[in-house]
């Protein structure tokens, strides 16, 4: 997964660390990750996409428990991965943490939390980003 060097990860820091999405100035729809143009308004949205920091609050739409994980995640298995619908509208994919695996359910309210996502072996870069935990 670490193919492409450090710049590939560095350029996604605003989105992955701070949930920076954007909003279409034409129809008002919100996107995460930010889009170059709105797929609903297309040319009408060019130059009208405005940055927007998302609240990080949302609800689980669906989930799985990963038992066979990729190399950089081997030490984390089993771990839950979910699709979360944020309260501003966009959906994203993230790990669910700080709860028992058996407690993860469709409809569960969650909020984002800043965590270590994966690391490149013993000496490589450590990559950070969002995971989600139950909203209590």
């Amino acid at each position: 997964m670490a193919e492409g060097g450090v710049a590939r990860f560095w350029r996604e820091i605003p989105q992955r660390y701070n949930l920076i999405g954007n909003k279409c100035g034409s129809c008002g729809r919100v996107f995460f990750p930010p889009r170059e143009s709105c797929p609903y308004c297309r040319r009408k949205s060019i130059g009208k996409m405005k940055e927007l920091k998302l609240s990080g609050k949302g609800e689980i739409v669906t989930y799985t428990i990963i038992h066979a994980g990729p190399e950089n995640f081997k030490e984390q298995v089993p771990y839950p991965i979910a699709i979360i619908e944020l309260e501003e509208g966009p959906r994203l994919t993230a790990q669910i943490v700080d709860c028992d695996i058996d407690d993860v359910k469709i409809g569960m309210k969650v909020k984002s939390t800043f965590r270590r996502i994966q690391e490149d072996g013993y000496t490589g870069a450590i990559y950070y980003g969002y995971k989600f935990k139950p909203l209590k």
Partner: protein
Amino acid sequence: MRDVAVIGVGLTKFGELWDKSFRQLTAEAGSKAIFDAGIEGKEIDAMYVGSMSSGRFVGQEHVGALVADASGFSHVHIPSTRVEGACASGGLAVREGYLSIASGMNDVVVVGGIEKMNDVGGNAATETLATAADQEWEAFFGATFPGLYAMIATRHMHDYGTTKEQLAQVAVKNHANGALNPYAQYQREIKLETVLNATAVAYPLGLFDCSPVTDGAASIVLCAADKAKEYTDKAVKIIASGQASDTLSLHGRRDICTLDSTVYAAKMAYKQANLTPRDIDLAEVHDCFTIAEICAIEDLGFVEKGQGGKAVENKITTLDGSLPVNTSGGLKSKGHPVGATGVAQIVEIALQLRGDAEKRQVNDAKIGLAHNVGGSGATCTVHIMEAV
């Protein structure tokens, strides 16, 4: 638009083929199809090759030229193009070949599909397959490829009451069919308990809900339908070709349980063929995971949304059911050499419509459908074929 016919088919054995190289597999499938069609090399106008990730699996790109070379056509300089759309690479290659004849540009085209997946270890194979997903926004966060289909399954079970037993029945059925296919990777039946008790991969999917890692190649010869008689009396017509796209990531889709790319590709194909889902006699669908076959029979319009699990349970899709699905054994049992799969599906439908499917022959098969998906549903092709 000209009508297009399949005049020859060829397959290698699917499986862990340690003694066969990438180029040997492609040459073997290609020469079988060419012999089956009764054409000569000088009659071939163009070649199209589907391969998902030769670069990661065998460290070799530029496989359009490689395949032409390995097949002995480099000295006659036949144009050869590689097509990529993840696990739908084969279906896309078929469509490119089809379009090039329908347009009038070519008369005879060879289409191949190839993947040599066992020259890398299991981890590398899994991570290569995950490149079909969104690397930055799915895989980076630890989502695996089975994990994405598992999330479709979780939601399908939640919304429609689909059960793990119904998922397992897809695998049981496809292994029963694969047991009758001499080219299949796993030519044996399995029990429901085996599927249900298998090692967990990504809840709710276990190992036997997943298609395997496979080496294999498939090839077909396409020809302008009005010229097919010059070569063979076993031609089968391709009467429609549909293709559609959707968001790369699963979380971007309108509905988690519906592959809109399938819905739209099917709509395009049914319209071109002037047929409805009821007119289809049998189908090869993209069962990379058991849940994928359930979604496919719904999204292709064979059953209502949400009724796919029940349809499998009621044995509608078995070899002797009212709509046999994956008579070849499907990706689950026949094997899934990703770039070859979309072409191999056309081979199976052609054999069925020719009456050459031997022990798994469906009686009175006149119209068949092939459905090939890339990634978790970002690309889809649907082809409809008719016996001549």
